[in-house]
């Protein structure tokens, strides 16, 4: 079987990332590829088109950079997302201001339509019909069509140059296992990109060590694997993780502490 390349560091895994690429970024709280995004931030890529659930805010921590930082620095041309503006008017995001000024293009998509457009991209389906958004601003300019007396919108697939993925476990064949709700957009984004790069929480094991019935994403979709180093970013909620990580460090392996 073919095997993905295993990289020694995040920086090496994204070193040849090309400007003006389209990038899928999963995550819904957990399951976000923070380490790869941080490496990409320092790699310098610009002119990006991104696909993600939300756009987020710039980071206050130089050790953890994300889409919000790239957007703030003008390195993103276009975002495709279910959230580009804060729903709270009191907390306008950077993206919101850039969109208003015209410096950033935004394609706002209902979250389910976003997920299905990504899934379609990975499944070779160029377009499909969905009822979400009929009769709203989202439907403007889109083809409408009735099936069995109900109206649907035609939505088109998304396929990217790169997907950054965050997995809990991986084997050397690239097979991935996610943990609980960290799964979210990860498997479908991994399927909808030419080059899928994965940061892995647990030590990468030999092909054949994972139960084939437990694998969430076949390695056939994975081109690059990188182990998250011990000083890497392990959680979204750094505040909460400080305590957990300290506790875990102090506990024997295999203990039942949450992780």
């Amino acid at each position, binding site marked *: 079987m073919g095997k993905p390349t295993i990289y020694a560091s995040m920086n090496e895994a994204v070193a040849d990332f090309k400007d003006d690429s389209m990038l899928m970024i999963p995550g819904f709280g957990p399951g976000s590829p923070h380490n790869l995004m941080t490496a990409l931030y320092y790699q310098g890529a610009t002119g990006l088109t991104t696909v993600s659930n939300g756009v987020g805010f710039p980071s206050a921590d130089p050790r953890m950079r994300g889409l919000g930082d790239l957007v703030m620095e003008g390195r993103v041309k276009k975002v495709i997302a*279910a959230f580009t503006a804060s729903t709270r008017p009191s907390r306008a995001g950077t993206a919101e201001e850039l969109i208003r000024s015209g410096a950033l293009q935004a394609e706002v998509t209902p979250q*389910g339509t976003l997920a299905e457009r990504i899934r379609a991209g990975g499944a070779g389906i160029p377009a499909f019909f969905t009822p979400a958004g009929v009769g709203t601003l989202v439907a403007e300019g889109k083809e409408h069509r009735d099936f069995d007396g109900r109206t649907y919108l035609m939505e088109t697939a998304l396929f990217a140059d790169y997907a950054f993925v965050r997995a809990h476990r991986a084997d050397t064949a690239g097979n991935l296992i996610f943990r609980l709700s960290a799964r979210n957009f990860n498997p479908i984004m991994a399927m909808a990109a030419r080059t899928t790069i994965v940061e892995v929480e647990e030590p990468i094991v030999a092909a054949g060590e994972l139960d084939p019935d437990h694998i969430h994403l076949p390695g056939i979709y994975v081109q690059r694997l990188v182990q998250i180093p011990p000083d890497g970013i392990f959680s979204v909620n750094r505040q*909460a993780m400080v305590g957990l990580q300290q506790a875990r460090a102090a506990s024997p392996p295999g203990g039942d502490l949450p992780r």
Partner: protein
Amino acid sequence: MSDEKQPLTRDQMGAVLAQRIGKGWIVNLGIGIPVLASNFFTDEQEITLTSENGVIGYGGLAPEGMEDPDLVNAGVQFTTLHPGGTIVHHADSFALIRSGRVDVTCLGAYEVAKDGSFANWKTVNDGMGNMGGIGGAMDLAACAQRIYIAMEHTTRDGQPRLVEQCSLPVTAPSGVDLVVTELGVFTVQDGRFVLEEHAPGYTFEEIAAVTGAPLVASPDLRRVSV
């Protein structure tokens, strides 16, 4: 009624939502007031809570110190999994929603109109069609069997949120079944709001006065029982 005026608290509004949810239903609770309903379900109701990020059968919020960083609900709060709960990816999560299996979506809103349309994704009607925070609300509103809205009865400056026509871009052009505010419980029927239950101490007239669309009293109009 000689009750003292007692607008419903946010928890009471959650409790009212919970009362209106049928046995065995599959339920999606939005952030804000709707999610508070989860504190009022009984085991006998056999409710299954799903969240957009693919958690099917979640339970209460995780107690402090017991959070699992990989287990969050649609509001990205640390949650727990009910025994028998499970996880799917985002496309499968919305496959479930889109297939019509969600019995009710409970959402917050800025406005609800008498035709059952509602607005909850853009705070201004600024003509920039492509900006806002839709999240999963449009999918849920288009596909769930019922839409329940929980919101404040009026804006901060006293303008009604139950209106003739939404002034903000809508999330769905129709479909709202029930609205819960601090003043009462309203159904949407035949292009008008029907007051089903009133908060303690409030008369129909008082509620109608701060409602921006025709309001009729249900023949069964009663005081909320929470």
